[in-house]
Each structure stands twice: as C-alpha cells, then as structure tokens.
C-alpha cells in the first residue's frame, strides 16, 4: 500500500477543484475514469483525435494519465458518411494489438450528434468473436447541472438524526453510464454465494484504500468475503459480481439494475449522517448484518470492536476535551455533522461554530429562504443534542470573529489558512480521516490529539500573502480569474431560457 498521506497529496496536486470553478469536463472523462479502473479492459473513444488525445489526462487519475486510450480518429469523411466502418476497424485493430478481455466503446458528442451507429459496429465485432460493448449516452456532452442544487434541497429537508437514502443519481455522468452498461451487457446470472459483497470504492475518505482494507478485514471476522471493488477489478471479477449477496454502493442506478436483473440486494452508504462517527460505523456494520442475515454475529462483532475503539481512545479524548475549539466551515450542509462528530466522537469543547455562506454559494446552490431555514434548524438541533454551549454565527463580521477567537485555542474544519491572522493554530481537515472502519476512528482521534498538542500559529504563511478573494475562496481576486468563474456560472449553472 502506498503511504496514505502521499496518496492523498497526489490526488490534491491534480488541480481538479480549481478547474471545476471554471468548467466541467465532458462526460467522456467519467467513462474513461470508470474503464481506467478496470484491469484487462481497453476503452475506444469514438470521436476525432482531440478527444482521444486529451481525455487520457483528465479522468481522475491525478497527474498520471491513462495511456491506453484508443481513438477511432474520426475525420471529415466519417462526419459525412458515418463512422461505423472506422469504428469497426479500430475495434478489430485494438483487439489484434492488445488482446484485451473487454473493449468498451465510448461515444463522444461528435458521434452522438451524427447519430453514428455504434451498436451495429459493436455487433459486427462481436460476431468476429471480440468481447466488446458500446456505452449508451443518456445526455449530450455533459452531466445534469442541477444535481448539486437538487441534492442540497433534499439534504435540507431531512431533520437532524433522520438519515434516509437520497434516492437519485447524476444523470448523464459518464462514470455511471459505464457501470450501468457493465451490469446490462457484461454480467451474467450465476449462483449466489452467501455472505459475499461487492463494494463501490468511492467516498471512503482521504485514506480510502486503507479504510477499505480494514473493512474487508473486519467483515472477514464474521465470514463475509469481499468479491470485488466495482469497477476497480479484473474483468473476471466484474463478470462474477452477480454471485454476491449484497452490493455496498454510492451510486444508485447500477445497483438498482443489478437488483432488477439478478436480484442482488444493495446497501447505499451516501446517506447524510447515518454512518458518521462511531455510532455511524456501528450502524454501518449492523445494517450490513441485517442485509446479510447475520444480525447476531454482527452485533457481537460490533460490541467488541466498538468497546475496543472507545477504550483505546478514552485517554486521548480526555486530553482533547481540554481544548476550546472554533469550527469554521463554508459548507453549511455538513455543519450539523461536523458538530456531532467533533463534540461526540472527538469530545471537543466547541465554543463557537462559524458558517460562511456567501451570496455566490446561495445563488449557485439555489439556496432560498426555506432551504436556508431547514439547514439552520438542522444545525440548531445538532447543537441542542450534541454541544449545548456552542454558539452558532453565520457570516460574522471581522471584529466578531476576532472576539470569538480570543476565547478559543484552535480553529478546525476549514482549509482557509487566513484564519491564522487571529493568532490561533488552524488544523487542516486532512487529519480528520474518520471513515467507516473502527481503525480509522481510533487513528483520527489519536491524530487529532497529536495535532492539538503540536499545532502552532503560523502568521507568516506565503499563501496568506496572496490575498484570496473572500467571495470566491480560494481564487485570487484578479479580474480575469473572477470573470472566468462568473462566465462559467452564467453560461452553465444559471443559464435558463437564454
């Protein structure tokens, strides 16, 4: 296993967050990402050379491209007469040169707009004995832009402590399109092996690989075996996916399709709050126990593991509870859970919780009065239930912040290092790596204890000399940068009927 902080660093070094302030990539990148996670599988992009050239780089692969991307290199002739023959020849040649176990043909806006017959080219290649599938475009060019705002509204509707599934997916996401096609076209019905699971390995936090290994080890204690990480597997493992009793998933559509086609149950784990903190970790394993029909064995395991985790961390928590903490967050929807986690799991004395909610964020996420009230009410509930002495302040003035900071020892929850200006240390959220394993719980609390002891105020950070734009943090306040961000929101996010 790679060193976990280095792994996280290599991910954050790819400027994805910055790029997404000014644009989104075409859905082809999601498809390439999905195929690139699989072994012995090769993607063929059906489009002009530019698509085959650049999509190697921007498919969630950090700074390491996916070199094995093949392009049908459509030219003017294919635009006029159709590219089916060239695609067919490209599939044949790809198979001849690379002998992959599966070829996945990915459409582009160009093949979509000329309505190229991918299905027919794929069928001809299949008739020649080549294992190939074609991905179907749900939407043209890019994903549904309203996803984030819709999700935000659903989250706001939920009460604190309530944690039902958010039952929707990103439409037109290239990644999802590939997963769906794999279920539909590759997997075959097979005998179900009890106590086996597939896991969709996304969203397990910055040290996700380690957490997945720990989950796998924990499940083994109750004789549950992980069959595959979907789609990060071999072709054979994907083929065998319908043999499991349960899918542990984030994205819904492929799992629903597997349930419909093979009867495979699923447990969705992107619910807000249900699986956060030690309570959430135990809940995760209990839910798994129910779905797998081993409630009693799982309950025994949960009790042992939970007791051990709480024992291991009790002394550190005592130390942590001596620190007076200020939470600062620009992500209002996660604030109730931050309060819950820091108060209950880390045993922090949270003096104040500062939420920065800019007009731009409100506009971009379509946060109206009722959504905002819903979110505030959730935060109030979390304070009432978890940290009664915490003062909540939304968008404080500089003097108010300064005053609040005087009573605190440390700032957490934010990547905005400019708060060093109040003379306090700022602890980076990267050290909070609590995920769905008990080991990650212990690790995070021990790490936080260490950080609270060792962190110091750093008033001379170079990064703080650059003068970030407060409305568009962390962009520089240069006219062209801000204009480019605004252009993007005008041409995409907020464009209605223009």
């Amino acid at each position, binding site marked *: 296993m790679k060193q976990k902080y280095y792994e996280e660093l290599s991910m954050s070094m790819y*400027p994805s967050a*910055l*790029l997404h302030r*000014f*644009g*989104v*990539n*075409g859905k*082809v*990148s999601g498809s390439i990402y999905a195929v690139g996670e699989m072994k012995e599988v090769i993607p063929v992009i059906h*489009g*002009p*050379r*530019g*698509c*085959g*050239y*650049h*999509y*190697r*780089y*921007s498919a969630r692969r950090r*700074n*390491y*491209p996916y*070199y*094995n*991307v*093949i*392009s049908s*290199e459509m*030219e*003017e002739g*294919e*635009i006029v007469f159709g590219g089916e023959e060239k695609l067919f020849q490209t599939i044949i*040649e790809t198979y001849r*040169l690379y002998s992959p176990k599966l070829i996945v043909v990915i459409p582009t*806006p*160009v093949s979509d*707009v*000329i309505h190229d017959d991918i299905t027919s080219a794929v069928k001809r290649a299949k008739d020649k004995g080549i294992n190939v599938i074609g991905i179907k475009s749900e*939407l*043209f*060019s*890019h994903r549904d832009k309203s996803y984030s705002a819709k999700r935000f509204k659903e989250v706001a509707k939920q009460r604190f402590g309530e944690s039902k599934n958010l039952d929707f997916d990103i439409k037109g996401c290239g990644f999802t399109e590939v997963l769906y096609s794999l279920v539909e076209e590759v997997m075959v019905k097979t005998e179900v092996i009890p106590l086996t699971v597939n896991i969709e390995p996304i969203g397990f936090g910055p040290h996700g690989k380690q957490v997945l290994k720990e989950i796998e080890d924990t499940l083994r204690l109750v004789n549950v075996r992980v069959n595959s990480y979907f789609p990060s597997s071999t072709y054979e493992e994907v083929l065998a996916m319908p043999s499991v009793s349960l899918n542990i998933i984030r994205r819904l559509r492929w799992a629903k399709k597997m349930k419909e086609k093979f009867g495979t149950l699923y447990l969705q784990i992107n619910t807000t709050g249900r699986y956060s903190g030690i309570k959430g970790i135990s809940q995760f394993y209990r839910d798994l126990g129910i779905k797998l029909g081993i409630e009693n064995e799982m309950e025994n395991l949960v009790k042992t593991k939970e007791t051990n985790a709480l024992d291991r961390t009790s002394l550190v928590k005592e130390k942590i509870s001596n620190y007076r903490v200020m939470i600062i967050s620009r992500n209002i929807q996660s604030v109730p859970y931050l309060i819950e986690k820091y108060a209950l799991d880390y045993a922090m004395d949270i003096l104040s919780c500062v939420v920065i909610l800019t007009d731009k964020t409100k506009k971009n996420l379509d946060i109206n009065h009722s959504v905002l009230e819903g979110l505030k009410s959730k935060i109030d509930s979390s304070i009432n239930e978890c940290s009664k002495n915490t003062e909540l302040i939304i968008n404080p003035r500089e003097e108010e912040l300064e005053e609040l900071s005087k009573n605190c020892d440390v700032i957490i929850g934010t990547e905005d290092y400019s708060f060093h200006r109040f003379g306090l240390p700022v602890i980076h959220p990267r050290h909070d790596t609590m995920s769905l394993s008990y080991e990650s719980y212990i690790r995070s609390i021990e790490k936080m204890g260490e950080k609270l002891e060792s962190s110091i105020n750093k008033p001379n950070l170079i990064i703080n000399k650059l003068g970030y734009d407060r409305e568009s943090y962390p962009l*520089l306040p*240069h*006219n*062209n*940068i801000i*204009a*480019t961000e*605004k*252009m*993007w929101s*005008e*041409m*995409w996010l907020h*464009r209605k009927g*223009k």
Partner: protein
Amino acid sequence: MKCSNPCKIFGAYQALGGIEDSVVIFHSVVGCHFANMSFHLTRDMEDLRQTCTVINDRDIILNGENSLRLAIENVISLYRPRLIIVITGCVTEIIKDDVDRIVEEFRKRVDVIYIDGAGFKSDFEKGYEDALVKLVKTFSIKKEKSKKPLINIFGMLYDDYKRKQDILALNEVLGDKVDIGFISASANLESIKRIAYADVNIAFGRGIEACRFLKDKYNQSYLQMDYPYGIEGIKGFLGVIADTFNIDYSETIKNLEENSKEAFNKIYSYLNSLYGLPVCVVGSYSRARGMKRFLEMELGMEVVSFGIREKSLNMEEFIANVSSSDTALVFGSSFDGDIADRLKVPLIPFDYPVYDRVSISNTPYIGEKGAVNLTEDILNSIMMGVKNRGAFYNEEDMYIW
C-alpha cells in the same frame, strides 16, 4: 489508435491564447474548454482568459448562435477585452452555426476573430497555422520602416513548458541591438498590428504560413529554423540575426560560452556519463530536431529513437520500436511517460503538453542558459529515478528495510 498529436482546436488555442487583453471563447461542448484549460492551468494558474458557450442538446436542435451571442455579450461586460477569439469545435461546425455572421454583429464594439477549430478537419499544426494566418490577415497594417532592427518570432506556444523563461532568455541574448516586435504566445494587439514593421520573421518550426502571407503581402523576408536549444542553437540564431542586420554578436557569444562553461565545470565528471548514451526524442518538428541536435552534438548522446508528431506518427509502432531499443532516457511531452514507464527510465518533458511539472523559476530551456538547465534536469532525473537505486543485484531491499 493511440493519438500522437492533438486536434485543431488545441493548435488554435496555443497560437492565440497568449495574446494579452484577449479572451478565448470555445464555441463548443464543455470537454474542449476543459481540456485546453487543464493543460493551461498547470502552466499558469493566474493568467486565465478562456470560456465556453457550453453547447447543449437545445443548441444542437435549434443552433448554437444565441449561445455564442450570449457568451460574447458576457465576455464584453465581464472582461472588457480588446480582442475576442472565437474558436469553434467539431459540434458547432457540424451543425453549421453561422459564426462569421455572429462575429460580424459585434465587430463595431470589439475586435473579434473566428477560427475554425473542428478536430475532425485537421490536426494541431493546421489549427496553429490557420489561427496565426487569420490573426495577421485581420490586423496587420502596412509596413513602416522601424528605426531599430526588429524581428518577429513565430512558433512559440501559449503553454510551452518554459514559455516566459525562453522569451526572456531570447530578449536577453539579443540585448539592446535588436528588438522583438511580435512573439507568438505572448503578444498584444499593438504588436500584432505592427507585425509588418519587422525586418525579418523567424519561425521556430511553426507559424510558417503566416510568414508566407507576410512575405506575399509586405515582402517581409522569413526564415524557418529549429528551436534554439543549446549553446550552438543560440549561436545559430544569433548568426542569422548578425547576418541579417550586419551586427557583431561575437562578444555576446564569447560571454555566453564563458558563463555556461563556468556552470558545466561544476559537474564535469557527470558529463562523461552522458556521452554516448542512447536516448529517445519525440516531439513536434522544430522542438524535436532542436533537442536532438543539442543532445547529440553538445552532450554527445545518441538519439536511437526519434519521432516527429506532425508526421502522422503511429504511436503503437513507435512505442514498440523504442521498447526494443537501448533507450536510457526519454525526451518528450508528459504523455510520453507512457514510453518511459514501459522502459522504467526517466522522462525529461520539454514538448507540449507538460502538465506534470511546474516551472516558476527563471530557468529557460533555450540557449546557453537552457543548456545548463536542461543538463541539470537530466542529471537530477537520473539520480532521483525510482529504479536503480540501492543494492546493485538486490534493489528491492530498499523497499523492505
């Protein structure tokens, strides 16, 4: 199959993106905008002047012309640019948006030019050439004789790994004897308008079509040469300038020889290990040739695999050939890590795109300073390579203990 060269839209952006006070509008789907931006932002996160019309399903059915109008209006009000560059992509060319007409509607308010960047029509080189020709055709004005020797430089790219450093190095080496009027990838509208004032146009490979146009229209002489890597490369460049203007650069040449010698003295023994080393060079025409000459004639290496992107390079065949060669180092773009990784040897990126290195210090690759910097990068890459460190016959030990 595997693509060796990007399409027209990238070439057009690299030719014109560096014009100050301009904004590029990709009249295309999001992927074209994002791709160009992802290569650009790794070079310069501050200089950002590009956007997109975000062509969607409705545009396909109706047309994308209103999207383009909206984008131009927004760009005028948000950036207040002096020049708007509209680069179309495949989809808007397929649906045949009347971009010329839309652009014409705005010409009274701001300078706007339109470049057809459809990838299915041609490659990077054609996009680069078309864009520069369109630029000089649209804006150049009749020649007035410059008082001081004046040259234009073509062939630089907006996202060259060492763009700013190389431009600075060129200016430094020319000194106050000769001025550069226009330099592609770092120009402004004034320098474009006065492009015909220069005495000679020098194309580092690319930009030759614009040079030909300027020759036809203004009788400006031009010269195509390889990118001036190395001491000899820059001496060749200065030789051309000296001959053109009858200027004596012998003192400059003496100094640059002396300065680089001082640096190389500190690593003289390492230079021995580079002599005779088999290496691979792959890149665009003038860059690859310039690099090959420097590596072979100045460092004494042997280029055993050589690939030029413009020549419809078959990547599958090229990679197979390099893999069966004795190549010890690979010189190319970041995408050529493919080859380096197969051989488990270092990649020295020098050709567009370079997205996995940053370069913010004043370390050009051009000329005698470039010779020193390139040699430094080569040696450091060898010494920092993950392979071949530690025990000689049991190198895995280093991971265990």
